[in-house]
C-alpha cells in the first residue's frame, strides 16, 4: 500500500484522535452503555488502520513491528485468563465475579458497587470484574486486528508478491 494524497493524510490526522477517544469511551463504558471491549477495540483498530491506509504500509512498518503488537495481544489474553484465575483464587470458582460487593479497604471498592435495582443513572464504579475484562479484550482486539491488517498490507507491498 503506498502513500495517499496530502488531503487524506491531513484529514486522517485530525480524525484519528477523535476515533481513538470514542473507541476508548466505548471500551470503558462497556458495562453501562451498549458496547464493550470488542466493539471499542474494533473502533480504535480501524482508526489505526485508517492511518495505515493514509500513510502507506512502509511508513507504518518502520514505526511499529508486528512482533510488538503480538506481544501486546498475548498480554491482553493473559490478562483476561488471569482475571478468570483470580476468580478461582479469590472467589473460589473459575470466572467468579469476585469484585461485586467486595470492600477492599474502609469503603473503597474497585468496580464493586451494586446498582440500585431498576432504571438508574450510570455509575462507573460497578460491574465487578467486567470492566477489567473489557479492558483486556479491548487491548487484545486493538493489537490483534491492527497486527493482522499491518502484516497483510506489508506483505502485499513486497516486491516478490508482484509478478
Amino acid at each position, binding site marked *: 500500500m503506498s502513500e495517499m494524497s496530502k488531503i487524506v493524510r491531513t484529514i486522517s490526522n485530525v480524525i484519528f484522535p477523535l476515533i481513538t477517544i470514542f473507541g476508548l469511551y466505548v471500551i470503558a463504558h462497556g458495562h453501562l452503555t451498549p458496547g464493550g471491549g470488542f466493539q471499542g477495540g474494533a473502533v480504535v483498530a480501524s482508526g489505526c488502520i485508517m492511518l495505515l491506509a493514509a500513510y502507506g504500509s512502509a511508513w507504518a512498518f518502520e514505526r511499529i513491528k508486528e512482533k510488538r503488537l503480538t*506481544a501486546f495481544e498475548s498480554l491482553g489474553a493473559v490478562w483476561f485468563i488471569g482475571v478468570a484465575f483470580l476468580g478461582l483464587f479469590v472467589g473460589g470458582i*473459575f470466572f467468579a465475579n469476585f469484585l461485586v460487593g467486595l470492600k477492599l479497604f474502609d469503603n473503597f471498592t474497585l468496580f464493586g458497587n451494586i446498582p440500585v435495582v431498576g432504571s438508574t443513572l450510570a455509575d462507573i464504579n460497578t460491574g465487578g470484574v467486567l470492566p477489567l475484562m473489557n479492558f483486556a479484550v479491548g487491548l487484545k482486539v486493538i493489537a490483534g486486528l491492527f497486527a493482522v491488517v499491518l502484516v497483510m498490507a506489508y506483505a502485499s507491498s513486497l516486491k516478490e508478491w508482484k509478478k
Partner: protein
Amino acid sequence: MNLLDVLIQHSPPLIVAVPLLGAFLTPLVGRINEKVRNIFALVMISITGFFIALLASDVFTNGPRVYVFGAQNLTLPVVRVLFEVDSLSIFMAIVTFILAFVALVYSWSFMKENDGLDKYYTLVLLVVASTLGMELTGDIFNFFVFLEISCISSCALIAFWVHKGESLEAAFKYIVISSIGALFVLFAVGIFYAQYNALNIATLANVIQFTFLDKVALVLLVVVLGMKAGLVPMHMWLPDSYGEAPPSVTIVIIGATQASLYGVFRMCFTLYSGAFQNITISESTIGLIIIMLALLTILIGVLMALIQTDFRRLIGFVAVAEIGYIFLTIGVGLVTLHDPDMIEVGKTAMQGGIFHIINDCLDVGLLFLVAGAIYYATRETSLNEMSGLARNMRCTTIFFLIGLLAVSGIPPMNGFASKLLIYQSTYQLNPIISIIAILASIMLLAIFVKVFYSAFLGPKISKFENVKEVSKSMLIGMGVVSCIIIIFGLFPNIVIHYLVEPAVNALLNNAQYISVVLGGV
C-alpha cells in the same frame, strides 16, 4: 476438605485453562530461548495430564461431575456455562492427552529445522485445549465455540509449510468446509434456543420432543460433525489435510477429528436419547442411513487407499476407512438400543466403537509418525521412489510393522480386540455388514503388506545409501504409541473393563446425565 479434593473439584476448568494459558504465554516464553519454550509446552501438557488423571480417578468411581463457571451453586434455570464430565468425556480426554504428549515429544527434533516454531507450539497447544474443551463441555454453544477454535487452529497448522502450494490448498479446503459446517452447527444451536430457551445439553435432553425443527437440527448436527470426522461423501478434505500437514501435527488433528466423533456420540445418545425412546427398529431411519454411509466410508476409504502412491495420502484414506468402523457402531447403536431384544447387541457395538476410537487414534497416528520419520530421513513421500529402507532404519521398520498389524486388526494388536466386538455386534444385526467390514480389514492388510514390501524391503537404492535412523525424540514418540498399542492388544479385557465399559455405561445412562444437572427436577 483436603488439597486433593479441592484440586479434583477445580480440575474440569483447569484441564482446558492450563493449555490455554500455555498457548497465551508461549510467544512470550519463546523470546527467551527455544529449548525453554519446548520444555514449557511439554510441562503445560504434563500438568494438563496430571489434572486429567486426577479427574479420571474421581469420575470413574463417583460418577459424573459438574462444574459451573462463575457461581458456587447451580441455579435453575441453568443460565451459566457448565462443564459436565462423565466417563466418556474423560476417556476422550485421556486419548487427547496421549496424542498431544506424543506429538510434542516427536516435534522436538522433527520440527527443529523449521522457523516460526513459536507459533507452531502456540497452535498445537490451542488445538489440544479446544479438543479438550469440546470433550468436557456441557453446553452446546460452548461446544460450537471450541469446534471453531479447533478448526481455525488446525487449519493454520495444516498450512504450516507455506512454501508448498499443496498444503495451502489443503488448508483452504479444510477451512471452507469446516467454517461452513460450524455455521450450520450454530444454526442448529439457534433452533434449540428458539424452541426451548436453553443452551445446556442436559436441560435440552430433558425437554426435547423431536418436532420437525428438532429433526432438522439433528440432521444438521450429524451431517456437520460427520463431515468434520470424515464421513463419506464429505471426506475429501481429510486425506488432503492429513497428507499435507506436518506429520507431528497430523496426530493432534486426529485427536480433534475424534472429538467431532465424540460430538456425534453425545448428540445421538445423550441429547436425542429421550426423543429416540419410542422408535422401533423398522422406524429408525437415521440409524440405517448412518450404517449405509459408514459402509460406504469403509469401502471408499479402502478402495481409494489402494490406488494411492503418496505414503501420507494413503494413510489418510486408511484413516477414512477406520472412521467408517466407528460410524458403523453409531448406526448399529441407534438401530438396536431402543429395542429390548437387541439391547445387548447395541451395547457390544458401542463398546467396540468407543474402544475403536482410541485404537484408531493410536494406530493411524503411529503410521503417520512413521511416514513422518521416513520423510525426515529421506525427504521422500512417494511410495514409488522408496525402496530398501529397512536396512538403515531398523526401529522405524519395527514400528511400521506394529502399526500395520494393528490397523488391519491382526490378533496380538489392539485393533483386533475392538474390531472383533464390531464384527460380533454387526453379525447379529445383519451378517452382510460384518462380512463387508471383515473384507475391508483384509484389504487393509493387503495394502500395507504391499507398502511394506515396496518401501522397506526391496532392492537397495544408491540414493538412500546414507539414510540414517531418526533421532531419539522421534523414536521415543513412536515407541510410546507402540507400547500402548501392544499393551492394549495383550490385555484388552482390562482396558474394556476399566476404561471402555464405564464410558459406554455413562453414555447410555441418559437419566443420570440429566439428573446430575437438574437434580431430580
